[in-house]
């Protein structure tokens, strides 16, 4: 059975590959430089933010995918997936925040921030689409 692949899917996958490559490079650079105490002051702030930029870029890529996808049913699946992901992420982060507020769990997130849970939520959204509509749409999200 042919897997659906519109030009929008291809554009999204290319953007994702480029952004994730930039993420790996910037993360490696930031970790290395911070470990060696090579930066401080304002440059340190800039360096700390640097790996966040390609992650924000992935959010942009997902939104561009929504805009560029020509198939209305596929668009609906993507919107549902993003809504589930947003709800999932907000729910996890809210619970976590209250657990921290009452000192039930330690502060910090061990590198698992909102973006991680939002991307995880996309998987939950795909599962929700599969269970309720019988298809994930062959989603690449």
């Amino acid at each position, binding site marked *: 059975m*042919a897997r*659906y692949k*519109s030009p929008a899917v291809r554009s999204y996958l290319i953007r994702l590959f480029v952004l994730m490559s930039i993420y790996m490079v910037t993360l490696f650079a930031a970790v290395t430089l911070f470990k060696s105490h090579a930066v401080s002051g304002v440059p340190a702030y800039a360096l700390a933010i640097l790996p966040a930029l390609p992650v924000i870029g992935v959010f942009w890529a997902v939104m561009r995918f929504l805009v560029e996808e020509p*198939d*209305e049913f*596929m668009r609906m699946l993507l919107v549902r997936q993003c809504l589930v992901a947003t709800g999932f992420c907000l729910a996890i982060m809210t619970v976590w925040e209250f657990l921290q507020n009452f000192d039930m769990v330690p502060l910090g997130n061990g590198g698992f921030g909102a973006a991680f849970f939002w991307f995880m939520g996309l998987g939950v959204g795909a599962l929700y689409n599969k269970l309720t509509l019988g298809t994930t749409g062959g989603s690449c999200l």
Partner: protein
Amino acid sequence: MKSRLKVLRAERDWSQQDLADALGVSRQSVNAIETGKYDPSLPLAFRIADLFALPIEAIFIKDN
């Protein structure tokens, strides 16, 4: 909303992929419309009606 899409497609001996290609949509879209899981937009409903040379109400039947 119910549709006669599956019947009309079968009468022409088209697969879901054939119909999807003719409409410029995914096969999953055709399947979702046929099984009543998705109601097409008005522009897509018109494209389907044009393809089968039938009025929209001859293809889509509203639920009571």
